[in-house]
């Protein structure tokens, strides 16, 4: 026996959808569950049944369990109890909640990653409805948003969330920890249909490669066939300097993000709204990512109450060349999506450029003018990108050009 009493989970006046479990192994007397819960009348029996079944699963015959419950869902209760058990006994068993079949979907390399919503990995209340806000990606975060003493139990909670919580089609992402702990995190999450791993504080290609290798080993061992993409996050001066090698480090890397809070701290400067201090790093990331053929992704915007400032930030971010950013509050999602999508004016202008240029080419010209503006191949390439984006976002039909009246062509 490791120690006599273990505690897992959270309780307190502000805690919701979570529980705190105190487990004590005893010599006799069977399983005694003491439940304090505001949902006791409605779910008391099922909570006690779950606890008893789990202890039986872990071959514990005698124990006292105290559960202080704030309306935790079963996958949360079982995660907390599992961590309590694992603090007391050595076991290779995992008590896995049923895999929700709605979660069995894969991702593709070049899907949109405009918005990705961070969810602290040890806060179940924020996970349950996260999918309803339709971010392109949902990040279950094991890294900075989890307190050091909660790291172990957050792995079990995130594993259970990956199995149970329906994220409504969002790309299922996990941000693992740095270094060795991050590699250990992979064991907990990979078997549960993770679409993408975020690798924090990437300093060089090696940081990506070791994760990639570990992913391959686990996939091989467990016979997992789903694709697991990687998104390194560059958050330091040396990482910026190595950004191109990071971007090219693995064929599984589909996007590269910048983390500006840590980057500005590394530089010893303040992060400002204007962002002058990080302009070089941001543009460097963009160029490196584009050169490697992956998506450059911007940092998060930390003032969750100022939607207008966020809107301006997104427009600026898009103008620089980023193709998405992180969100720390669901309300940021629509602002970000709208910001990265092309505007009606941009689409109209691009259509005109493509039409005029195609007409010129039919006449054997490679350069043409609209008003006083010269239209040459790079301008057309940009216009074509906008149109492709509009088509993929459903803002423009695939055969739009056929719908244009002949006299305008």
């Amino acid at each position, binding site marked *: 026996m490791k120690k006599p009493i273990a505690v897992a989970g959270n309780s307190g006046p502000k805690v*919701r*959808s979570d529980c705190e479990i105190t487990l004590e192994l005893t010599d006799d007397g069977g399983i005694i569950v003491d439940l304090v819960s*505001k*949902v*006791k*009348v*409605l*779910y*008391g*029996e*099922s909570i006690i049944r779950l606890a008893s079944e789990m202890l039986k699963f872990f071959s514990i015959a005698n124990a006292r369990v105290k559960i202080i419950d*704030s*309306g*935790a*869902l*079963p996958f949360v209760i079982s995660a907390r109890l599992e961590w309590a058990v694992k603090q007391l006994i050595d076991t290779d068993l995992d008590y896995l909640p049923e895999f929700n079949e709605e979660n069995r979907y894969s991702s593709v390399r070049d899907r949109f990653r405009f918005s990705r919503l961070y969810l602290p990995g040890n806060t179940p209340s924020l996970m*349950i*409805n996260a999918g*309803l*806000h339709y971010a392109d990606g949902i990040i279950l975060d094991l890294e900075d948003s989890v307190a050091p003493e909660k790291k172990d139990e957050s792995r079990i909670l995130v594993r259970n969330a990956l199995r149970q919580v329906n994220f409504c089609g969002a790309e299922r992402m996990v941000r693992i920890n740095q270094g060795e702990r991050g590699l250990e995190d992979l064991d907990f999450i990979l078997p549960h249909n993770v679409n993408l791993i975020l690798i924090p504080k990437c300093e060089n290609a090696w940081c990506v490669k070791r994760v990639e290798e570990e992913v391959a080993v686990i996939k091989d061992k467990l016979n997992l066939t789903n694709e697991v993409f990687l998104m390194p996050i560059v958050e330091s001066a040396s990482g910026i300097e190595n950004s191109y090698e990071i971007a090219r480090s693995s064929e599984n890397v589909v996007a590269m993000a910048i983390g500006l809070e840590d980057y500005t701290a590394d530089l010893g400067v303040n992060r400002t709204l204007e962002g002058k201090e990080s302009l070089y790093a941001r543009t460097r990331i963009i160029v490196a990512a584009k050169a490697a053929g992956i998506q450059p992704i911007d940092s998060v915007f930390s003032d969750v109450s100022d939607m207008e400032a966020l809107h301006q930030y997104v427009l600026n971010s898009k103008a620089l060349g980023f193709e998405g950013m992180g969100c720390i*509050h*669901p*309300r940021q999602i629509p602002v970000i999506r709208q910001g990265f999508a092309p505007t009606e004016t941009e689409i109209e202008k691009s259509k005109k450029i493509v039409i005029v240029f195609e007409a010129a080419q039919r006449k054997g010209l490679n350069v043409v003018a609209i008003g006083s503006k010269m239209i040459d191949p790079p301008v057309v390439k940009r216009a074509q990108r906008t149109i492709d984006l509009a088509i993929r976002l459903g803002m423009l039909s695939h055969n739009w050009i056929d719908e244009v009246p002949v006299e305008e062509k």
Partner: protein
Amino acid sequence: MVINAAGRSVPLEINGQPVIPFQGDGKYRPEGRKYAPPVPTSSDYPADGNKLAGSLEEALIRCGLRDGMTISTHHHLRDGDLISNIIFDIASKCGVKNLVWFPSASFPCNDPLIKYLDDGTINRIEGSMNGLLGQYVSEGRMKGTAVLRSHGGRVQAIQDGEVKIDIAVLAAPSADSFGNARGTGGSSACGVLGYAKADYMYAEKVIVVTDNLIDFPCFPMEIEGNYVDYVVVVDKLGIPEKIMSGTTQVTKSPDRLLIAELTASFLEKSGILKDGVTIQEGAGGTSLAIAMFIQEILKKNGWKSKFGFGGSTHHMVKMLEEGQMGYILDAQIFDPEAIRSVENNPGHVPYPVFNAYNYHSKGNLTTMMDVMILGATEVDLNFNGNVVTHSDGYLLHGIGGWQNCLHARNVILPLPLFRDRIPVIVDEVTTLCGPGELIDVIVTERGIAINPLRQDLIDKVKNSGLPIRTIKELREEAVKICGEPQKPQFEEDIVAAIKWVDGTVIDVVRKLKL
């Protein structure tokens, strides 16, 4: 016991008085005449109009306070009320027993009355049962049976003589010595006194209590002095910061904002929102968010709501002042911004509940409303609603104006699909407060369910892109996430009766098996 028209088993007698079981909405038609208090003679009152009594105790004794009387109060001082409890301190001191307290609502500040329920000073409360009082009743500890009525049902009961008020003790932020009184001025301002009208008109005796005595005439008078027996001046009527609920902030919860956005979007896409629309919305954080989204839609289209019915808030005032609302008709005020408005804006009109919600009258404001946005603790597969008990069986809320509002053209309930694991959509409501035929739309963060009786609405939003689901689908999703809940266990004893707007008994609450 009989089974009423809603299929609920209800008694034929409550607190020794015969009651009529619910017969279906609009089915019960009372006969006879309204109740009336005795005819007074003005020569019995001071010729100089000065009705000041030395203290509340003196006034109560001069009103003949004795065993078994019914004492009414209004709830405009909300959780800052310093008067209601004192009435029963006095009664207890005088050894008076078996009183009935008949408030228009109770608040946590009234929890100390439990000791008078224990010692028999108070037999029962007929009014809303919140927090500890509700728990006390649910556990079967109150001697009499609680009777819960809507705001409209309360004034209907007074008017029809179902409840005969012996003494109405009406706190008034400003009053003159003749008894004219209003809700503004002084240090305990609550804005309007929309809940006091039936009480002062129908009570045998009326005491006005104020901490701001002003020279005659106290104007504009919401309580008319010629109905008043005594005026009492006290140091302090209430705690100002608790009288006002404070400026309620728009919810920051992403899930609630999502519900609010979906609600406003439904109202827009269904065509319910239009120029001249009449709206009543609540004062909570989600309601404010809905109101904000509605204002944006009205603004965008250059539309104006003809009027809104308060409880008014700073947000309604904003709509009035920015031109998206023609008038505020107001029965109660929630924040200082709305007090400022009612004092200065002729478009912000005090409007007693007696004139708005009384079902036994010649018309009803609620049927003139296009949109009513309401809450509920539970809704069931037949769209029946519960607002008084929680799914665990505890009585924890009053009905408020909820039942009255169900008669609006479009009744929308924005609700989370589950609260802390407790599904809000259930097979059958724990307590029936409103029949499903009157509830049109449930908006949750996981989809919108429209009552099949409203095929018109179903057709209108068919191709709107809104997430329309059946209520059964929503119920199944809640159970999939939360698990199937057990039912609370009850004893046979009835602890509270729920009246419908016409005074019939729609359901009862039973004692919890502990």
